[in-house]
């Protein structure tokens, strides 16, 4: 073996530390906008959580602005986010559609029975195929859709009061205004 190859562990360690240091200093600017933003929600066909034999496609997402939330019972952050989703539904009257990501449908149903159900309905994504289409890194992730089914905003991580106020509420407001103009004229 080459003498220099014995420095490989040191090099790997330096790279990890370096990436860590640079990453922590970059802050929010490092987040790349998702290539999906501005594009229509990908087409899919998935069973509903409550009715295994009913397959639905992207057309169920059309007609009104809504939030698509990717969640799972194995995800502690989803548990933390759950309560805020209920608030959103109650306070803002926002419709929320869930995608149960890589999870057991029975476990997901139990979770909803136990903690409450803010979703209009849920779709199953057992093998995570829809997740791949959506570029999901982990859970939770959320997509704000306009009435035409286009992705207006993508959120990786939990939706909370801050994200809602800064990023999502203004966009939803704009969509609702646009919709009113369209129907009013």
């Amino acid at each position, binding site marked *: 073996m080459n003498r220099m190859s*014995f420095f490989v*562990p040191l090099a790997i*360690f*330096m790279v990890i*530390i370096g990436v860590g240091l640079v990453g922590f200093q970059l802050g929010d600017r*490092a987040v790349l906008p998702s290539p999906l933003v501005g594009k229509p929600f990908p087409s899919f066909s998935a069973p509903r959580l409550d009715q295994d034999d009913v397959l639905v496609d992207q057309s169920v997402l059309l007609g009104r602005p809504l939030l698509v939330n990717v969640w799972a019972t194995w995800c502690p952050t*989803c548990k933390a986010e759950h309560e805020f989703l209920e608030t959103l539904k109650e306070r803002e009257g926002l419709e929320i559609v869930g995608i149960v990501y890589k999870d057991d449908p029975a476990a997901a149903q139990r979770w909803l029975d136990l903690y409450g159900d803010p979703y209009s309905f849920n779709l199953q994504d057992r093998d995570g195929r829809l997740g791949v289409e959506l570029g999901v*890194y*982990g859970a939770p992730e959320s997509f704000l859709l306009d009435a035409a089914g286009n992705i207006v905003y993508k959120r990786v991580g939990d939706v909370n009061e801050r994200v809602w106020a800064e990023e999502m509420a203004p966009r939803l407001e704009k969509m609702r205004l646009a919709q009113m103009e369209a129907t009013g004229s």
Partner: protein
Amino acid sequence: MSVELGHFSIILAFVLAIAMAVLGIGSRTRLLAGSAYVLPLLVVGQFVFTGLAFGLLVLAFAEDNFSVRYVAQHSNSLLPTAYKLGATWGGHEGSFLLWVLIMAGWMLAVSWRSAHLPTLFRHTVIGVMALMNVGFLAFLIFTSNPFQRNVPFVPADGADLNPLLQDFGLIVHPPMLYIGYVGFSVAFAFAIAALISGRLDTAWARWSRPWTNMAWAFLTVGIALGSWWAYYELGWGGWWFWDPVENASFMPWLAGTALVHSLAATEKRGVFKSWTLLLAIVAFSLSLLGAFIVRSGVLTSVHAFAVDPERGVFILAFLVLVVGGSFTLYGVRAWQLKSRTTFTWFSRDSFILQNNIIFVVSLAVVLLGTLLPLGYEGVTGDKLSVGKPYFNLFFVPLMLMLSALLVMAPVVNWKRTEADRLRERLRWPCITAGVVGVAAAITLLDRFDVPRIAAVLAVLLATGVVTSHLLDLGQKLRQGHRPSLGYLGMFTAHIGFAMSVVGVALAVELSSEKDLAMRPGAEVEQYGRTIRFVGVEEVQGPNYVAQAGHFIVHENGRDIVLRPEKRRYMAGGNLMTEAAIDAGFFRDIYISLGEPIEEGGWAVRVHIKPFVRWIWLGAVIMALGGGLAILDRRYRRIRTRAAIPAGMAGAL
């Protein structure tokens, strides 16, 4: 007064550690060579002073001395005495004092049990360990001092120990874990001493093997205890969550397990010399990383007792210095190591190599899965879970591969194995594994999917492991060999691993979990058992009030009473779920009480978990194997032989 004495003691221990680091590592210079003989004395001194400090902190807890801030934050006059003592390491500062004490204890053990080592080498080992303890003690004194006073405003009572930690499992879990973590510093110090001294033959591997086995055994028990605690105390019925804190202890274990095996190959055959050195460095580095993850406050979970950036930066700096320094030394020196031996594909050498590859890949999987979400949170400030699907995707096939290798482990010889011998000795393991596998398939494959197939494979391979090991032992006994304790240690540990594999596979696949709303008098059927909810009554505990449920489980003609509790602790007002478990060798019945719902009903969680005990039992048996291996005669012989010249030197 005694509090100040404790404070003073850790400062003294710190000074002694500096002296030992300088003397020990500097003993190669002419200037200091003459004074290094005092090292054993300093080691004793350091242990006495850290022990004294620890004892005084325990005393402060026993006396309810709330003028000490740490005591006021983690104890309460109503707390039962056993938990007051356990509370000594129930928070950040105290648990780090325990860490330092354990480090001092390992140094004492090494100093007493290394008379057979060359003097210079022994001094260097002590010096390296002392250098580590300088860092730990500085951290304790400057950022996490448990003896800080709360004067002049002494609180009338303490804030109480986190109710989650008021439990036997959590009193024993940290000491075990720390003995394991810190124990890897011995193998680390031997590796560094070998690199510094240029003694790069296989001697260091032989010397550090018992130490590594012991640290590994303690770590195994510590992790099992943590998992067991999470199972019965958190009220979710899960036993492993791939939580960053769990991963922090699992990573050193994976590296340590690889190290235990590669040390064997290095000692016996002189192969993988530089790789084993690297693993020794990595195992301890991961212990430090674990300390950083848990202690820095980068996490917010039950384990993250403190959030204080100062601490995180300190440990991170220490980590970079230690790991960076060791890897640099490795880069400069390790190329001199050469292994000239060769081996074939079907040999024990090759199997240990494959074992190491599997463990290192597993390690990389856990490292990525732990650091990436942390990194993501660091960059964006948001939390993200990679979670169970990611880990299972890698761990299930990796552990199955490992089990498959393990079936053949007792059959293969060092260097090369004859194909005939392989075929002959694998016949029976294959037959039993096949029979049990078919039985498992009939039971498990009512649902035909990947997890079920994996579970069947796990049972099949575990049977193969047990059979091939038993056959090998039987053959040894028949031929009149008395198996060495080292061999029996390996045998036991491998059986323990097979048991854990079966436990995991069956507990995951066969467990039946129901979350129900039940009213008093209601009955539910589960796995042929009738579970009746009698009612809920109020119970008064020493420092809590509880709603205690009363359940009667009817199983095979007998009744089992289970009383899960919902406790409200008086000092903090914390609500805690105390699950009731009927534990059995083949199944656990697990009931926990959720929230009250309308009309006197309760949310109830009823789980039946087959074979779940096997997971921890297997781990304990694995640790037992590690313990047996330490008692092997070879290590005792080295000591007695070495004791004679040392005694003669004393007489002269």
